């Protein structure tokens, strides 16, 4: 399946629009889902996916299969775009207090994502080993696209603490997943 996607990407690099369409048919719904968890607004998620496909089309030739899967590459674009959009919208929030409130009602999607990970998979096992609040920090960043500051607000800890928790959690995760 992922090999198919890599081939489709290569065809996009040659200018074959049908291949982009094939990627769209296959991945669009999943991309909207990933973008929605971050930006939480349907029409914005759609705008993001629109931009993602334009990016895929323009940058297909830069995809390097020796570095990783085609799917990983494409979903990294989805998350990048969604996170930039989220940062832009949160800057538009009038007060720091509203920003705080916006962060505080986050977390459900993160917990949900964790629950849905396949039992016994390496990622689930390694995330389980993290202390629950630290695990939530990692998930809030990846699944919901929160910044260090927002994660600190959500976890109710100082910014410095949130940063060092994330730093150490990543080091632990990497060791566990190696």
């Amino acid at each position, binding site marked *: 399946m992922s090999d198919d996607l890599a081939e489709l990407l290569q065809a996009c690099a040659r200018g074959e629009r049908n291949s982009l369409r094939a990627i769209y048919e296959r991945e*669009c719904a999943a991309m909207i889902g990933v973008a929605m968890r971050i930006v939480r607004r349907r029409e914005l998620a759609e705008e993001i996916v*629109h931009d993602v496909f334009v990016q895929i089309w323009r940058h297909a030739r830069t995809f390097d299969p020796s570095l990783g899967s085609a799917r990983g590459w494409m979903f*990294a674009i989805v998350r990048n775009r969604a*996170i930039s959009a989220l940062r*832009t919208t949160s800057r538009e929030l009038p007060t720091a207090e509203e920003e705080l409130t916006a962060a505080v009602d986050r977390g459900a999607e993160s917990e949900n*994502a964790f629950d849905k*990970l396949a039992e016994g998979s390496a990622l689930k096992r390694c995330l389980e080993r993290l202390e629950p609040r630290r695990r939530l920090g990692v998930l809030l*960043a990846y699944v919901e696209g929160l910044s260090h500051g927002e994660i600190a607000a959500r976890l109710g800890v100082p910014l410095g603490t949130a940063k060092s928790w994330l730093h150490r959690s990543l080091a632990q995760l990497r060791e566990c997943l190696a």
Partner: protein
Amino acid sequence: MNETDRRDDNVLAGEFALGLLEGSEREVFERRLVRERALQTEVAQWRERLAALDATASPGRASPQLWGKIESSLGARRAAVDEARPGWAEQLWTSLGFWRGASFAGAAASLMLAIAVGLLAGRATPQPLVVAVLQTGDTSPGAIVEAFGDGSIVLVPLRDIPVPPGKALEVWTLYDKARGPVSIGLIDSARRARFQTASLPARAEQLYEITLEPATGSPIGRPTGPVLMKGLAATPRL
């Protein structure tokens, strides 16, 4: 590189993959990422490690118009380096060479253009529907935009525009205030470029502008960076 640096880089790559790096920290990392293969590998490995989380999102339904919108943006975003012979404005500008170096304000430049168009009338070059002289903050002419009847738009920079690493120039037009600026395309440096758009309107008094955006274009489909130059279109008097 010693063991500690390598471990730090790994965590840094993880933070980058998570989207946690911001501001200058991110810029420094991205600059290194372009050059350092080892770092690219670290980032890719983090993506693979965490990819299973992407699969846990509930799928969302796209509106039926989404594909159509994507398709019409594909042409618009692709700025092919123009291989054709010098276009109309460029010939014009070259023929105006003797004016170069003279200091004049944008308004005066527009006037000169209007006069000079007469010099070139009759040449067998497709003529644009509208021409805009984009002015920089100090109102000197920065670029010419020509919009043609077939939807193609040609940009001819008249000066260098410094583009920091990781950034690009995005060309926009505003023809409907309610709709907001629409992206015409992206270029990595101030060079002559032709954009094929899905026949955007090209009318007199329509605004064209160039903003500084991330290398992959504005993430939100609207200008996010500073406006480097802008100008209103006028119909050439031929």
